[in-house]
């Protein structure tokens, strides 16, 4: 279908800048994008009859990664070796 209506996973790598251009970066657009992403994740992994640990474990892992990256500058000071 047309480029602007495809989801991110269906966009090919070469078309990525064009797809980004069609994106809506206003606050409402960003909010809508976030809502869509959350609802698709929620409907796929959490809002099911027999879910497992996968739903929240992926969220927690993402949170761990995010917080590690936010604290990276501070953690860099506690390295074991000076030269890698």
């Amino acid at each position, binding site marked *: 279908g047309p480029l602007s209506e495809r989801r991110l996973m269906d966009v090919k790598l070469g078309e990525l800048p064009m797809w980004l251009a069609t994106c809506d970066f206003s606050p409402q657009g960003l909010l809508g994008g976030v809502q869509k992403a959350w609802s698709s994740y929620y409907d796929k992994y959490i809002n099911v009859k*027999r879910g497992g640990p996968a739903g929240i474990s992926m969220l927690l892992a993402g949170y761990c990664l995010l917080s590690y990256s936010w604290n990276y500058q501070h953690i860099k000071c*506690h390295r*074991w070796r000076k030269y890698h």
Partner: protein
Amino acid sequence: VLHTRRPLHTTQQRLAPLPPLPEKGGEVRYGLVPEEFFQFLYPKTGVTGPYMLGTGLLLYFLSKEIYVINHETVAAVCILSVIIYGIKKYGSDVAAFADKLNEEKVAKALAVKNEAIKDLETAVEQEKKEQWRVEGRSYLFDAKRNNIAMLLETNYRERLLTVYNEVKKRLDYQVAMQNLKRQKEQDHMIQWVEKNVVQSITPQQQKDSIAKCILDLKALSKSAQAAV
């Protein structure tokens, strides 16, 4: 007539019935990596591709110390091991318990629905019975009409009888009157004739008739003596 300008019920109903929830969530390996990632890498690298990628990335982060090993690593390892042990041991029990709760909820809702359906069905049956009863209305009215006709007939005949009796009484009276009158006239006439006859019997006639009777009696006695 609905006072509305916008058309009603043009789109498909979206509220009911809701589509059922999917049975299982998306496939996830080791609780962290979605299956789609493995399928994405399979054509190019086969089955071991993602594992090699993971190992390579891990060694790279460790060797370049992009991931630094410190006290938090130890804490993370302990916590993760406890969590994984807990999930492996009690996961199925918790899942069964949650399924039972869900089952009870669904069963209750289903019971309510079935109850409502049963009640409505009985109501429909009763309504049909009432409609069937309505058909018997004509018989009821015929019976009532017959009753009323009989009452009217009875009343009419009673009154006829009364009329007949009254008229007969009057006629009988007239007949009795006439009979009485004739009777009285007859009696009176007889009495008058008798009186006149008795008056007209002179003493001479009386002596003659008595002598005649004695002579007759003698004659009779002569003939009768022989029979005795």
